[in-house]
């Protein structure tokens, strides 16, 4: 198992990190996602914009395997992952954060990140207490440093501030060896200072880690991404560089004008 993951990693170099071919999803009569085709190069950083209900989170769920697409194919570093279980995708280096924080309220910050590191490594199962020299524990320390949470390491997650919880969300996604991360509105509910902090954290990520970010805050979205996709009613309707999107009249009218609330 471990070797096959390593093999897929090697084979993935040079190809696109994420390829979506005509991916769609409907719930009964409701069409949530319709014919999405998308290519994102390894290390690329993509923002996905769109009003509420445009299908952005549905797109994430399809990519991470929270539910399966009704049709279409998804490839991750060249490998078809359309039908894989979520944890299998995680092990291949795909990560995500959640729009509403999905954390472990009664664990300490350190333990949470430790578990995340453990989850993507071998030996997830152990009846032994992790010692200070434990590899996953060491990695957790460095991730906590990367997301500016070192001081909070021993605090219970439930007692963290909202902003700190969003930082922890990102920390959990950094565990192991992420190759590609899906950020679902990481800036939601953050103060201006915290937003600046967030931009700093995201821009400081190693360049080989690509990501897709869903964000309503254009300031954040455009400053961390190098390419932008616009979604509306479950479809992609425009793509371009941040500058192009910022200056596009149609985008300004439909989306920036009054679309999002």
């Amino acid at each position, binding site marked *: 198992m471990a070797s096959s993951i390593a093999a897929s990693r090697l084979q993935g170099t040079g190809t696109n990190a994420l390829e979506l071919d005509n991916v769609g999803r409907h719930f009964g009569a409701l069409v949530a996602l319709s014919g999405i085709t998308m290519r994102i190069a390894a290390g690329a950083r993509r923002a996905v914009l769109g009003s509420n209900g445009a299908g952005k989170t549905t797109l994430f769920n399809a990519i*991470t395997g*929270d539910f399966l697409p009704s049709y279409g194919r998804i490839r991750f570093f060249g490998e078809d992952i359309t039908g894989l279980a*979520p*944890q299998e995708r*995680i*092990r291949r280096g795909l990560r*995500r954060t*959640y729009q509403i924080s*999905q*954390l*472990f*309220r*009664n*664990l*300490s910050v*350190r*333990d*949470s990140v*430790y*578990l*995340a590191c*453990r*989850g*993507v490594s071998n030996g*997830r*199962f*152990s*009846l*032994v*207490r*992790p*010692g*200070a020299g*434990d590899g996953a*524990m060491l990695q957790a320390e460095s991730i906590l440093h990367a997301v500016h949470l070192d001081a909070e390491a*021993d*605090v*219970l997650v*439930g*007692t963290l501030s909202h902003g700190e919880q969003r930082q922890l969300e990102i920390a*959990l996604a950094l*565990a*192991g060896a992420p190759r590609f991360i899906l950020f679902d509105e990481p800036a939601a509910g953050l103060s201006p200072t915290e937003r600046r902090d967030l931009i700093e954290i995201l821009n400081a990520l190693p360049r080989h880690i690509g990501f897709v970010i869903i964000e309503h805050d254009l300031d954040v979205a455009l400053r961390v991404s190098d390419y932008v996709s616009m979604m509306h009613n479950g479809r992609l309707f425009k793509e371009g560089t941040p500058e192009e999107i910022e200056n596009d009249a149609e985008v300004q009218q439909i989306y920036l004008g009054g679309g999002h609330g």
Partner: protein
Amino acid sequence: MSLLTEVGSPAASRPHFPELFTQGHALLGFVLLVYPALASDFFVTQIGAYSLIVGLIALSLMVLAGYGGMVSMAQITIAGAAAYVVAILGDNNSGVHGLGWSWWIVVPVAAGSASVLSAIFGWIAVRTEGIYTIMITLAIATACFYFTQQNYALFNGFPGYSGLRAPTVLGVYWRDPQPFYYLCLTVAAIGYVAVLYAARSTFGLTLQAIRDNPRRMRAIGFDVTAHKVFAWWLAGLLAGVAGVLLAWFNGRVSPGTIAVAPAINILVVAVIGGLRHPIGPFVGALVVVVIQTFAIDIVGAERFNTLIGLFFLVIVFISPDGILGLWARYGPHPERDGKTSG
């Protein structure tokens, strides 16, 4: 679900096992060790040993409910399964089975079967979540009760088995009051320390994280179902060992041992004691056993159940964390730590 919250204590990275080496534990250990010298045989076995056994069964529930968020009503059933194995493979005087195997085969087989049964229950129960688990395990426990009552070939039906005897090892008959008390104390202490340790092991942290947010645990690569089933297996092992002691304690096992009322009793014990810390089930067991034994001298046995029921209601209402929670709130507490009051 504040009842199920576990105080996450800091410093998982500490290399040792510090919470065991406290003044409180030393004092408790001392008192438990000298207790038989102070008390009558009746108090040593009927109160002391019996509380430890009931506490051990309730501890297995505490592991599932406190750390795993799965409230099981089937723990007495699992303990009962081990007791039945003791009766079937060991000696009994009911004239059915009683294969007469030695204790050193019977005990591991009994505990092992109980843990496997527990894993099977768990596998059924984890298909559902939260509050459903109570209902499903209650239904499973009832099914087992009826089955043992009706089946004569294996379980000897309604009367069950009697004449179960603890072994004589090293020249000591282990059902004599003092040896039996120390046996129960040793087993309970091992169970307690193991749970205390395992709570902060990778598995323990995983289980608690699954309780808090199973969806995220899946998203960071954990097999939630397998971990939950393993927790059931572990809890089953605790309950199974307790079941062996229960068989020796009572000298018998019958469908009445695993009926609905005893099943509820275990939940009452665990909740009264508190589900936040592994000492809780033992505190609850002691309180309930003492009340149960002496209610007839104080209030008369007729309204015993009203007494225990009201006590339970009051505890659930004013202190979701049972007696432990009351203690945390009102007891002398110089080292009170603001962080743990969430």
